[in-house]
């Protein structure tokens, strides 16, 4: 590559010409070429949408409303079905609209912009939540079925635009390419008003009515196409090519996830200094075992304070249950032998069989697992009451899987499912204890091992795939608000006669 020998900024500027010559050239250019250019440029593109947002109460809400409009416009643009009208033109059109606009005045503004539809974005506050509402109003007859209103809610400001954009993306799932046939050419091909932006590439496509069309070449917004005779006189066609919504949904979901994690992270909740991840690891490996050595059971709750929660209160059932389990670890072999055997594992006496000794060793050696489970149980309680997400939550599924591999039920506690967590812990420990206790009976060990493997597999899968139970988090993952849904069902009664049912369900979440 040639080394540049340009000016200090590394740029070489295009040589300028004499201003008078330039001015003359410009005027000639404008008068000679601009009519043609303007004609081409003002030729209407079908499927344009004007997105209106209005000043709200407060600067923050106004900025958020504008951000929502920008994000929605970007989503429309990326999905290639409705071309957003440029923001500058919208601002100019809104200048003539009253401060509190009604639908009729917006309709007039949208018509002046030559838009086929318009969308109105409104934000409001409902308790702690921000509610975003978008109303899509068709202007062209072609899009009359698209009229709809939907709302989303969130406790995280920056998620409102993203959740609205998500719903806009979902609208596009079944939208084919609607294209006008603009011109018939001398070689029998046609100029189509849809191109790369709409997702078309050279190749064979089908229309929604099943006819085959062949696209020979595309520009950004037009195509050269071969049409069957049946379509050659049609003014417009619908091509069965649907927008790739999945990739955009994934990207929006990632951003919602990031914003939610940022808002509800331990770091944002007031912990300072060491990373929350390091505190979490330190808590499991060092602080919690030490605390339980001093105060068995209750130590698990005390160690949660190491992570820096603002408000901590113990889960009393969790403390009681884990304390009982710790006692069980030491007392179970004694209880099974009516307190005749030596308390310490490995110290044999006449009453202690080899199997019982194995069980005792197992129970003593798995005490660290039980205290870790008790710690995770208390943490799940703290995360819920403090509305904080656990560390590593950006990779929550992988983190839950790793925890479940190391600690029985760990992944379920991590995602806030305390009762299933205890269920998996008890199942794993019982089956592992059974295998150890019946070590010499190969058949029992085999069946015990198979059962343990099965339970562990179910646990790992559940940990990875189950959604978290934190309500504040799930609210950010929900879609549009559905205040009521209508259902209809038909089922036979006892005598075989059909019974028709009509129901209305409301969500109070």
């Amino acid at each position, binding site marked *: *590559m*040639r080394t*540049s020998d340009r000016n200090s900024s*590394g*740029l*070489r*500027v*295009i*040589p300028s*010409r004499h201003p008078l010559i*330039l001015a003359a*050239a*410009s005027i000639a*250019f*404008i008068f000679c*070429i*601009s009519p043609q*250019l*303007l004609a*081409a*440029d003002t030729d209407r593109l079908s499927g344009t949408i004007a997105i209106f947002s209005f000043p709200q109460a407060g600067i923050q809400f106004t900025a958020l409303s504008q951000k929502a409009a920008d994000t929605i416009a970007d989503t429309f*643009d990326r999905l290639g079905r409705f*071309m957003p009208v*440029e923001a*500058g033109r919208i601002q100019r059109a809104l200048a003539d609209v009253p401060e509190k606009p009604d639908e009729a005045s917006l309709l007039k503004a949208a018509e002046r912009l030559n838009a086929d539809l318009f969308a109105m974005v409104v934000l409001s506050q409902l308790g702690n939540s921000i509610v975003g509402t978008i109303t899509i109003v068709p202007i062209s007859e072609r899009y009359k079925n698209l009229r709809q209103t939907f709302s989303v809610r969130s406790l995280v400001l920056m998620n409102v635009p993203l959740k609205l954009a998500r719903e806009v993306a979902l609208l596009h799932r079944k939208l084919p390419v609607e294209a006008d046939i603009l*011109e018939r*050419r*001398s*070689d029998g*091909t046609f*100029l189509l008003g849809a*191109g*790369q932006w709409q997702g078309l590439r050279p190749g064979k496509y*089908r229309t929604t009515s*099943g006819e*085959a069309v062949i696209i*020979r*070449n*595309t*520009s*950004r*917004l*037009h195509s*050269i196409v071969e049409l069957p005779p049946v379509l050659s006189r049609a003014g417009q066609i619908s091509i069965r090519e*649907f*927008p*790739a*919504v999945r*990739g*955009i949904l*994934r*990207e929006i979901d990632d951003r919602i996830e*990031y914003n939610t994690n*940022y808002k509800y992270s331990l770091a944002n909740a007031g912990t300072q200094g060491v*990373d929350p*991840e*390091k505190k979490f*690891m330190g808590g499991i490996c060092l602080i919690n075992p030490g605390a339980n050595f001093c105060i068995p059971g209750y130590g698990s709750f005390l160690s949660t304070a190491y992570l820096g929660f603002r408000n901590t209160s113990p889960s009393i059932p969790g403390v009681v249950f884990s304390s009982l389990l710790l006692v069980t670890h030491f007392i179970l072999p004694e209880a099974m032998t009516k307190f005749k055997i030596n308390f310490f594992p490995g110290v044999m006496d006449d009453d202690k069989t080899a199997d019982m000794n194995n069980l005792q060793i197992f129970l003593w050696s798995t005490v660290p697992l039980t205290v870790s489970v008790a710690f995770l149980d208390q943490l799940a309680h703290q995360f819920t009451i403090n509305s904080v997400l656990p560390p590593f939550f950006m990779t929550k599924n992988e983190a839950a899987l790793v925890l479940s*591999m*190391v600690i029985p039920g760990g992944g379920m506690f991590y995602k806030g499912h305390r009762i299933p967590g205890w269920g998996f812990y008890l199942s794993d420990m019982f089956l592992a204890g059974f295998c150890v206790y019946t070590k010499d009976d190969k058949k029992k060990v085999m069946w015990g091992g198979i059962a343990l493997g099965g339970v562990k597999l179910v646990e790992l899968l559940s940990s990875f795939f189950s959604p978290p139970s934190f309500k504040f988090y799930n609210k950010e993952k929900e879609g549009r608000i559905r205040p009521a849904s209508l259902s209809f069902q038909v089922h036979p009664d006892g005598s075989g006669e059909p019974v028709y049912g009509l129901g209305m369900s409301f969500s109070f979440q």
Partner: protein
Amino acid sequence: MRRHLPRAAALLLMTLLSAGAAFAEEKPLVGIAAIRTNSPRATMLTTLLEENMARIIDSTDSFKPVNPALLREELKRFGCTEERCMLGFASEAGMSLVIRADFDDSDDFMFLSMRAYGIGVPYYSRVVYQYTARIPMTGKLGTSGYGSIMEEHAGIFLSKLFARYRVPLFLEQGPGAAFHVGRSVSGTFDAYRPDPEGEKRGIRGFRKIGAVRIKNGSIPAPGATHAGDFILTGFRELAESMDNHRYRMKKEIVFRKPSPVEAIYALLITGPASATMPILAPTVGYYRASDWQGLALWGFNLAPYLYLEINGLANYWANYYNKKKSTPRDVQAQYYFGLYMLCAGGATLFVDSLAHSMIEKASNYQGIQPFMGNALTAGYLALVSGGAGHFYRGDRLWGYLYYHADNLLLYFTLREFLPDRKFNPLTRTFTRAKVSKLRAYSLLSAACAVKIAEVVHAVLMRDDIQNGDIIDEGYAVEPIIYSGEDYNVSLGLQYSYRW
């Protein structure tokens, strides 16, 4: 009237640029406009990106940049930021490529989206290449650091763009029956003929009419071609050279100059590092660097080999011999494998625990990283410890693949070459079981082949020092059902990729 004012002003700017272009050499003109930003930090990056992009384009000697600051300001001033307006503008200004960049500031990250539109034949304003990168913004960098980051992304984008971009060379009538194209190119090219032009729009179809052989821009035997036909030629070599240049430059910025002494240091610390790896890697390495992914992978991947190491060294096979007991082959193999893991094999994960964070710092321009980026060190590490060379280069996937392949092949090779020693109580002597030479030498050959491939791969591969993550655009694979004209149902699989 108000609508036409910005358009007229934009036309004035087009005239300025067109006038400049007319004076320029016959190089494709490239317009760069970073349009959208949403924070002061992003606005600063805009200028850096534009400057770097213009400088790189200018230095190619094959393309010519339009003054990006002027272009951006004029586009913004006259409200010509919409895609359609910008493409019309670029077309009238005689540009061959127009690049649009948008920044989206997201606290810890900056999303940079760049999109290049090809103007004229054969693209007709289509997007030629699109690139979205997520750039970490957590490091404390100065203007020069951010300048380097922008230069890197501009370089990656342009090299990938030029690898795809094609320009048409139209056939012109030369003296006699020969044709020539406007550039000195040689080779065999596909020739295309444009379809008739329509009344509206500039877009035309074109058909392939055959191949032509060109020598230094001349076509001695034109065959069925005639004037107006064209060939498409690209810039693949330029793109490759830009890519290599960018990688070399970044290595010079983030690594010290490689020296053989570094390989000697690596040789000296291999033994101690390997022996202490089970303690030092998780604490001094992964925990200190908050590399939690590394820590989890370390735990699961080390466990089986650590078991073999401890079991092998604790259960010394010679004790069986002293106690007059038969010595199983596994006991012997575990012992020697344990020695290998103690002295050299453990170095692999020690290297990973340190190199991963150093490579990450290098990729984000956070200081000069010592001992990194040396091909000799990579080769040495790959030779003595399975996968260590690849971990040193920052490639965890290949590292773990070689780590497991090497360890498993080594263990099973040892096991084949160390047969059971059976003690006969009657004669009080040991007898060696027979070695399956075919199996043993097959395994040895496989181990050697993997090792040679690993060393060569580790020496030749690049360090993983690219800044940020490149995000792919939306793609989807989904089943589809068509109903044809004859009401037959066709089933198919659709792969769609959207620009």
